[in-house]
């Protein structure tokens, strides 16, 4: 009997319309656990050659974890694909009810291949899987799509992941919306759906998940709830918005396209403001009692009085202060527009702030922007620009390519102002304030991303010297491994990886799980061993690195935008900190050595074989 996992993977070929299930191999379950690890491995297996992201041979993989669907707080599922933004590996996580329902419907993962001839959506309910016509949905926004599918299927309780007009128009940072306000935002997987003519996936699962030791599982659940009650109280109060004040205090809050590190009016957008003026109540994901999602109610000129989940910290910063906008209700309105149109709030925010800076510097003028004045903090203009981007109209057509490609199209020195790593726009933490985070951005496998290693806690609030170099490479590698394990179990980053989760995994799967803890930071999990099978986190990270190497990413791509090396951070300390290229080079050397990669950042044959990645070794050597 398979416990924890369900033991089935769904294979859908949109070109031929064939639907089949294959058993989940023992290797996938033990070496890659699920969620992010399983998605990465399936992507590696189903994309054998180097292809364009919009090629019909590209695949979209989605996996749920071994604990997803059980009462353990692990509601995540991960999409993986070849990214339209970076042209290499990407994955993107989504919480809520979608992944749990996939598990309860009886599948660990699905893989979507091929390209449909006309718009379709997928309807998965237990052992019945249908490809249905979605012509009537094409062109509808995400929220209308949700309602229309529920009406079409005559079931108000299905869980839907869908793309908006942006995904249909192949905007390179289009996101996938699930359960209305939960997005698999980053990397542009939504555009890959659009290129496959796949509008939505509706799931309703009614099955069960077998557990190896249910009694032990239940007693561990009690322990876990006690830990969560103790640790997650601040999250319940303010959600992720507590970061606004914290990051502003330490000079890490990007303002006006990463020029400044602080804003003088955090009180207009912070958690306290949301509670006082806009907060209605909390919302949460499947089985999770943290309830960190903010459901706010605001009045906006575009929509009138609206109630929505969000904005979270990243959205708030990149659409707000980073575009010079300090008005909570306007940012919430922009957030709703992004959700409706199906664009990643982070990438689109950074792209708009990039365009605003070009306009300010005179690199683009009114003639380029169809007469629009791209002034800092003009929310009306941003709403219009968002519509133009999603529908690829006029100047929006250029910005829809993402800031890296847009800079190349515009030329004239615009590259300097595009804040991206490997093509994906940076999130809302300024790396000039801390060398570890700079290294984490540079070595992130999916581009400018904070979710691979969030070292801010140790560096800024903990004991380490934030501008120093010692121990940073080891810290980043350990954090990346830990995050890979956490993602692969399906645990949300808001909760953290308490040791009790590993015991829960053991109880669910009937395994003997051993964790290796870091000596310096005793609380930090370094990596995970299951049945003598070492280094699950490091294995996943090495696999995605091998995938990126295959797709032509080299050491030269492990870098940061020029601004961080040339301009000091303004508004925080005097003189403001900036990064140096030689420091980053030293850190990269250290980091590659710890990872067992060569000087060019390519995993060595020994490393690949150590982690049992023979197929990657065969590809690279």
């Amino acid at each position, binding site marked *: 009997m398979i416990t924890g996992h369900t033991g089935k993977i769904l294979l859908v070929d949109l070109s031929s319309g064939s639907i089949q299930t294959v058993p989940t191999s023992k290797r996938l379950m033990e070496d890659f656990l699920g969620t992010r690890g399983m998605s990465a491995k399936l992507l590696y297996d189903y994309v054998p050659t180097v292809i364009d992201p919009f090629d019909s041979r590209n695949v979209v993989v989605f996996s749920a974890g071994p604990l997803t669907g059980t009462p353990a707080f692990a509601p995540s599922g991960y999409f993986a694909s070849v990214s339209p933004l970076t042209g290499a590996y990407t994955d993107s996580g989504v919480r809520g009810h979608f992944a749990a329902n996939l598990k309860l419907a009886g599948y660990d993962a699905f893989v979507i291949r091929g390209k449909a001839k006309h718009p379709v959506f997928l309807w998965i309910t237990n052992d019945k899987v249908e490809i249905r016509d979605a012509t009537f949905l094409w062109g509808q926004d995400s929220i209308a799509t949700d309602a229309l599918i529920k009406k079409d299927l005559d079931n108000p309780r299905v869980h839907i992941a869908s793309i908006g007009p942006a995904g249909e128009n192949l905007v390179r940072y289009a996101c996938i919306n699930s359960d209305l306000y939960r997005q698999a935002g980053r990397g542009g997987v939504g555009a890959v759906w659009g290129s496959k003519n796949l509008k939505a996936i509706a799931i309703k699962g009614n099955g*069960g998940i077998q*557990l190896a030791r*249910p009694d032990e599982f*239940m007693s561990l*659940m009690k322990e876990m*709830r006690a830990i969560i009650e103790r640790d997650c109280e601040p999250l319940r109060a303010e959600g992720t918005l507590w970061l606004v004040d914290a990051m502003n205090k330490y000079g890490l809050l990007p303002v006006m396209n990463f020029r400044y590190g602080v804003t003088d009016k955090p009180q207009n957008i912070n958690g306290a403001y949301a509670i006082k003026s806009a907060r209605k109540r*909390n919302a949460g994901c499947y*089985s999770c009692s943290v309830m960190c999602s903010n459901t706010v109610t605001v009045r906006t000129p575009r929509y009138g009085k609206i109630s929505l989940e969000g904005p979270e910290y990243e959205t708030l910063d990149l659409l707000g202060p980073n575009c010079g906008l300090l008005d909570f209700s306007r940012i919430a309105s922009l957030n709703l527009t992004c959700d409706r149109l199906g664009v990643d709030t982070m990438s689109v925010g950074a792209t708009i702030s990039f365009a605003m800076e070009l306009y300010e510097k005179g690199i683009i003028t009114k003639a380029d922007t169809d007469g629009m004045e791209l002034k800092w903090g003009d929310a009306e203009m941003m709403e219009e620009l968002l519509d133009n981007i999603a529908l690829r109209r006029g100047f929006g057509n250029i910005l829809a390519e993402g800031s890296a490609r847009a800079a190349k199209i515009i030329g004239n020195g615009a590259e300097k102002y595009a804040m991206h790593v490997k093509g994906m726009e940076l999130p809302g933490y300024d790396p000039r304030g801390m060398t570890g985070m700079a290294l984490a951005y540079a070595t992130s496998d999916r581009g400018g991303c904070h979710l691979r290693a969030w070292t801010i806690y140790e560096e800024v609030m903990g004991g380490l010297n934030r501008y120093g170099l010692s121990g940073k490479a080891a810290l980043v590698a350990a954090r990346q491994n830990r995050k890979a394990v956490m993602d692969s179990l399906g645990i949300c980053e808001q909760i953290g990886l308490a040791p009790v989760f590993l015991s829960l995994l053991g109880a669910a799967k009937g395994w003997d799980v051993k964790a290796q803890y870091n000596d310096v930071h005793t609380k930090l999990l370094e990596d995970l061993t299951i049945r003598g099978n070492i280094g699950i986190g490091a294995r996943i990270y090495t696999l995605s690195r091998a995938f990126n190497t295959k797709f032509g990413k080299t050491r030269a791509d492990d870098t940061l935008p020029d601004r961080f090396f040339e301009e000091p951070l303004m508004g925080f300390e005097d003189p403001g900190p900036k990064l140096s290229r030689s420091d980053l080079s030293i850190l990269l050397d250290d980091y590659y050595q710890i990872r067992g990669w060569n000087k060019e950042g390519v995993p060595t044959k020994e490393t690949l074989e150590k982690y049992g990645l023979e197929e990657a070794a065969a590809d690279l050597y």
Partner: protein
Amino acid sequence: MKRIIIHEEDCINCCACAMVCSIGHYGVCDRSKSNVRPPEEEGRLYACLQCGRKVCVETCLKKALKVDVQTGAVICDLEKCDGCGKCALGCPNHGSHVDPRTEKIMICDLCHGDPLCANVCPTNAIQYMELNDYAQQKRDRIASKMILAQQRLEVIDLAAREEPACVVVCPTGALLMGPYGVDFFEDYCIGCHKCLEACPIRSGELSDGGQIPPCHGLCGDAGIEAIRTLKKEDGQ
């Protein structure tokens, strides 16, 4: 005797109750094989409330159901149960269900006096407590709101108010005139319905929680004038 008490308005549909119930009773994590039904399954949160009448026990032809004297829960003898579903049909609370796979009845046994669902519920939408304690808690809540209201009214200049009828009559300051119309502050509302009675157009309807949703400024100058006229007539 303690009972299960449900506050449906607090439920966030996380399904934790159903999953721990299924593991605790049936050893499998399966939302649909659970004695408590979250909105994900049935659209609303249902569970056996250990009511006094026990229609299920009365209707059971096989005498499979009996009441546990210690906890007051209904216990099912699965040997006797033939899954006819009469108890499920008769229950006004949707408290019992037939398992479609085994065709046996599923009903809350209160986990021998320590219900798992009430333990795990993050929002206390399911509580296990004495009915009298619950009533006391509810009274305390109204009392604490009245204290809040008293403090609030002290800082509001009552004489300066020229506002719609609902705002004028509200005894706690839960309704106030804002820049866009009437603002409703749920924390202060005690559910006295005075605003509803005063409203000339009867805009609000009682919500499930017994509180009044506001009209958000539908009551314009004409409405205010109408109320003033009415008041004058009353005075004469």
